[in-house]
């Protein structure tokens, strides 16, 4: 059974409708990339699943339970980690304090255990443990936010453009880490990416969104092979 | 019979003042979203202008040599001599009256510019703080800088209507005040229905959109604040003449609070609301003034209790009916959206 199922989701902001009936499902140990042109509703899709937008119609189920109307922090507690593009860190606090907050609801022993795991997964974070987040580069910050997410041991990660504004080399490192998330923890990951090619390369399945509607849904390799779609939407020659 | 007429004449005078203050704050806050928490300062500016100038300016005409006496110690004496002189020269008296009311409004406008300059570009909380503390500073200066209005003595203002006497004088005075207040209300009323008025609301509601359209938001805010302060200054001048004396402690921050009560309860953002709010407060205020004379002695000053109630009512209105008694009409809102999107 899929971990998350979205059925015919229609959502937007206030009276403005962005998504016009999007469906998807994702299972454990799967990376699903959501790609498409600017303004097609990729970020809105993630936000809607997490409960930050207005839902007009449709159903969202997580582990068999209907979570369409649940509040964001309830979904967080159920095991969904949403990492928005901005604003996912406390920039004025130190890295170690950010991690402390990520494990806020854990007991001391649980926290130490999970922290060990998270730092094993992302050892780079130990290097800037005492530094304030605002002094870190974009890539370093991204590592911290992933570490914070890993600490919470979610079953589903929703990442909104994690490589935006990052230098190619660092972007690659981040994408590698995302693959490791799947391989090491068996997590399900929905990845919204502007860089379609890179996303398709690491993902199992893909959802191509255009103007709030799904234009393709299937395996990533299939999409890469579809010359027509690839040319129109992925900037592939 | 005369008693009731007297009350009406009294009411009219006070209403004129309250109306002007209410209109000015409504223009600033209701239409433009400026949190003027220093309203009393501009009101005082106009009043102090009259207090500082009127007596001193006219004294020589009344045959008084100011260099020979301590104006502040003897200002009551000077004031009554000047009034007696004015009684013989009605034309001059009225000219002085009008001139000083205008002067009061100019001083108000100047203070409006001065007090808001440091923070008009900043967020509204900074502006709110600036206006509050500026008012406090003016009060301290007026209490201690004797040449202004004689510090703790206060300054007597001559009576430009002394060419009449008794009831006729009261009626004429109230009539003048009410006319000025009404004119102000009508002019502002036209102003806010004009494109300028819609611009103000656009700035209040969708500041970024207005800026994108090329409007200099800061400049407009400044202009509105100066205009509002001019009106408050004129009201202050009228008040100074009406009361016959200007004393610093009369211009406490409480006055600002009361104007806010009027505007919020009446309904911010529309001129009629300003008039209604002022009317409501007038009744409360004057009824209490009369009631006080009939009530048994309380162990505390009744005014304080009034303020507590007004404060509670203001909070309740803000929570439950923030648009006030007379809400901005919906059609006006549509007009704004049109304007902002053009």
């Amino acid at each position, binding site marked *: 059974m899929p971990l998350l199922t979205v059925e015919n989701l229609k959502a937007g902001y206030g009276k403005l409708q962005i998504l016009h009936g999007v469906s998807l499902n994702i299972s454990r140990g799967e990376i699903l990339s959501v790609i498409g042109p600017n303004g097609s509703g990729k970020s809105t899709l993630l936000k809607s699943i997490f409960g930050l937008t207005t839902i007009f119609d449709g159903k969202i189920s997580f582990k068999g339970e209907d979570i369409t109307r649940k509040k*964001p*922090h309830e979904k*967080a507690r159920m095991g969904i980690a*949403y990492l928005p593009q901005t*604003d996912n*860190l*406390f*920039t*004025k*606090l130190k890295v170690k*304090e*950010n991690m*402390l*907050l*990520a494990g*806020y*609801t854990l007991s001391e022993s649980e926290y130490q255990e999970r922290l060990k795991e998270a730092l094993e997964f992302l050892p780079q974070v130990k290097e800037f443990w005492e530094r304030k987040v*605002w*002094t870190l*580069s*974009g890539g370093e910050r991204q590592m911290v936010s992933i570490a914070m997410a890993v600490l919470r041991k979610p079953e589903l990660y929703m990442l909104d453009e994690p490589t935006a*504004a990052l230098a190619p080399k660092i972007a690659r490192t981040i994408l590698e880490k995302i693959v490791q998330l799947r391989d090491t923890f068996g997590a399900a990951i929905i990845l919204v990416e502007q860089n379609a090619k890179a996303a398709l390369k690491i993902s199992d399945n893909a959802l191509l969104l255009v103007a709030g509607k799904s234009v393709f849904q299937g395996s990533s390799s299939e999409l890469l092979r579809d010359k027509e779609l690839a040319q129109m939407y992925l900037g592939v020659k | 019979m005369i008693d009731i007429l007297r009350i009406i004449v009294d009411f009219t005078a006070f209403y004129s003042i309250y109306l002007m203050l209410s209109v000015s704050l409504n223009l600033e806050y209701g239409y433009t979203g400026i*949190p003027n*928490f220093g309203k009393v300062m501009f009101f005082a500016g106009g009043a102090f202008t009259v207090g500082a100038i009127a007596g001193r300016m006219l004294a020589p005409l009344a045959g008084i040599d100011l260099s020979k006496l301590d104006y502040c110690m003897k200002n009551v004496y000077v004031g009554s001599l000047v009034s007696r002189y004015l009684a013989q020269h009605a034309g001059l008296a009225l000219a002085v009256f009008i001139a000083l009311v205008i002067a009061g409004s100019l001083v108000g406008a100047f203070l409006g510019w001065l007090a808001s300059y*440091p*923070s008009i570009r*900043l*967020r*509204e*909380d900074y502006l*709110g*703080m*600036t206006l*509050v*503390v*500026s008012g*406090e*500073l003016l009060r*301290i*200066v007026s209490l*201690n800088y004797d040449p202004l209005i004689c510090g703790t003595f206060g300054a007597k203002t001559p009576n430009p209507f002394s060419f009449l006497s008794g009831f006729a004088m009261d009626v004429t005075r109230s009539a003048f005040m009410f006319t000025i207040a009404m004119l102000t209300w009508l002019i502002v009323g036209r102003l806010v229905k004009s494109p300028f008025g819609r611009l103000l609301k656009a700035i209040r509601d969708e500041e970024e959109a207005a800026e994108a359209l090329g409007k200099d938001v800061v400049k407009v805010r400044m202009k509105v604040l100066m205009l509002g302060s001019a009106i408050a200054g004129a009201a202050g001048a009228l008040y100074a003449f009406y009361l016959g004396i200007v004393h610093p402690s009369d211009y406490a*921050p*409480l006055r*600002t*609070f009361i104007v*806010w009560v009027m505007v919020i309860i009446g309904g911010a953002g529309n001129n009629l609301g300003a008039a209604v709010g002022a009317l409501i407060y007038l009744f409360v205020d004057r009824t209490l003034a009369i009631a006080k004379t009939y009530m048994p002695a309380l*162990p*505390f*000053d009744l005014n*304080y*209790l009034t*303020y*507590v109630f*007004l*404060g509670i009512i*203001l*909070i309740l209105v*803000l*929570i439950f009916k*923030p648009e006030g008694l007379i809400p901005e009409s919906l059609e006006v809102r549509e007009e704004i959206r049109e304007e902002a999107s053009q």
Partner: protein
Amino acid sequence: MFSIEVIIDAITFSNLIIALAIGLTLTYMTLKVPNFAHGDTAVIGIYTAYTLTIMLGIHPYASMPIAFLLGGALSIITYILVYRVIGQKGGSITTLMIASIAVEVIIRSSLHIYADIMPKITSTFFRGFTFSKYDFSISIGEATLPGVLIVSTLTITGIVVSLYLFLTRTKFGTAMRATIENPSLASTLGVDVEKVYLVSWFLAGGLAALSGIFLAFQIPSDPESGWGLLLRVFAASVLGGLDNIFGAVLGGAVIGFSEILGIYLLSKPPIGLSPAYRPAIPYLMFILVLLFAPKGITSINLKKLIGGEEKK
């Protein structure tokens, strides 16, 4: 240049301004509204202590804990009944400010009523009193140090240090700093944001009440004393940067010292300014900060530091 007495005055005054500024900055950081009733909360502290002194013979210093609790309680009540409600209804900053003014008027007028009634019950005046006659003093060499200097300095230092430790070394304290920066993120991570706000308002009110008591040792007090304090507090908090508790400490010290030392210098010949114009000094500094560094002086330092360091 400055006599010992003036320095002592400056330190004592700065202490209470610091306490007030910390509180104002704390509550500002929760709702982004400057609390216009903050000064009056200090006066609540004064009257609590005075009432206990007159009616039960308790020394003002001994009333400090009770005043702290009462100030904190009043602060929380106003937050729950007024600011939180308006905030939840989506009230703008200006609406919150208007409400703040209303709360201020209610508190101040209630204090007036209290100050009117109490003399009839206790046959003592309840306006224009000071605590200075209850103060002790310690002589060190040639100098006589008034008790209020020692008590206020010890209290404020203790508070600043504990606050620092609380905010940086405890989990809840760290959560508070996180909430102040990004309440929605903190909430997603499981922080009880409401609790953070309640603690902030409680601390602010308690600190204000304490500073009121220190003030009453220095100048005659009455219900109007709070309003005058606002000017200094705003100046101090804005100077320090409204998003920065350490800045509030710095701002409080700067404002306190410059006012006392400044008026001392200005009141001497050749200028001979009347001490009644004291408020002009914090006012001037407030205006200067707004004109040149509205985010506070701490922000200037940050910018110089970031200059070479921040990587992209």
